[in-house]
């Protein structure tokens, strides 16, 4: 286990969240807009080859924030396009992120069935 990887995961992951916080605090963008913006940004940065170096440096620090979800989508679509052409361009993104999306749906549903929300204090 390499501690320097954890250092970069912390710094880069934290820094990406700070960008989100600045957008919320200074522009009053709602969280929903932040999430959409980040995922789209991740796809675009990946397309220009700008996100890959960040993933190599920071590992989970770059893949866990929602930009990393965009990265996985973008990378998957591009790889799919290389292998299977137009069909791959359509299937690549979702294939690469299928695990996370399916997990979100399954765990989301299960939690909703098991738990009920509580009033905030």
């Amino acid at each position, binding site marked *: 286990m390499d501690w320097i990887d954890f250092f970069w995961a912390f710094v880069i992951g934290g820094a990406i969240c700070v960008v989100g916080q600045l957008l*919320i605090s200074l522009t*009053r963008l709602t*969280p929903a807009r932040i999430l959409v913006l980040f995922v789209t940004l991740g796809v675009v940065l990946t397309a220009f080859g700008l996100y890959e170096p960040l993933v190599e440096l920071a590992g989970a620090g770059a893949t866990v924030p929602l930009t990393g979800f965009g990265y996985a989508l973008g990378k998957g679509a591009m790889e799919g396009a290389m292998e299977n052409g137009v069909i791959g361009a359509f299937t690549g993104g979702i294939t690469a992120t299928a695990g996370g999306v399916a997990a979100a749906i399954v765990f989301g549903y299960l939690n909703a069935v098991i738990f009920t*929300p*509580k*009033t*905030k*204090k």
Partner: protein
Amino acid sequence: MKQKRLGRQTVVFEAPPRIAAGATIVGDMEGAGPLGGYFDLILEDDTWGEDTWEKAERKMFEQTVRRALERCAMQPAEIDLLLGGDLLNQIITANFAARELAIPFLGLYGACSTMAESLLLGSMLIDGGYAGHVACAATSHFSTAERQYRFPLEMGGQTTPTAQRTVTGAGSSLLVEAGYAGGAQFRHIFVTGGTIGRVVDLGITDANNMGAAMAPAAADTLAAHLREQNRTVSDYDMIVTGDLGSFGSEMFNELCRDKGIDLSDRHRDCGNMIFDLAQKVDCGGSGCGCSAVTLNAFLLRRMEEGDFTRMLFMATGALMSPTAGMQGDSIPGIAHAVVIERR
């Protein structure tokens, strides 16, 4: 015909109706606030044994009306009219509670101004001879309002510093005609007049800054009231606004100063009174229930005991709509003023 109107917006009553009783039910956070000792019932569990918060809010509305009637030993069948509202779509709280109470009912929507709106209308109907006993009520519930206007409760995120917390509370007042001689909780409290507010909108679009959205309406109504009544602030012991919150109050004071009205130290805001600063509610409380419970639990009792003799109760409403908000519209505000006197 006797002239009961002054100017365009203000009414005065020939035979001022009395507020004979008030009742309040609140959630536990309101109960832990500075006014905790004044409420009739504090709910430990804000679902109150129901399976949804909407049903709990309905129960609060119904029970607060029943409690006010009990204080005058009256049955729902003796009430001529129920006036009330809440914040939910199609005012389901008031409508469904009225189904249980079976009192002739007029549903009102004035957002957080509903308590003043119902008192004003009820008094006008009594003074006009159209009703003898009128029950007025308003409710709001943090958890039903949150899901309708904002985000699911379990969603993580921060509130902005101008945000206000919707009060979980139901308040009701029982209005009776001046000559009423039956049992009563209050013997000295009269509604002598009021001013119907105009919808005022200075283009605030931030749904987390309702105080600023409502302040212009409050200033507009106060200015109209003082002008048409030919009074000054010093004629009142207290000018009480509904739920401007701390920042909204600041803007209200400034707007009044612009109009040449000096509030000096006579302004109080229910949104600032109901919670402690330590309760982390940003700019204070809001919602129909905020002014409804502060009035009925605290202000009327203090007045009955003689702490003050004339107040202008001005509940403020932010007439916002998630749909209009998403379409980019700003938040219109309204404020209705009711003159409540001790005699």
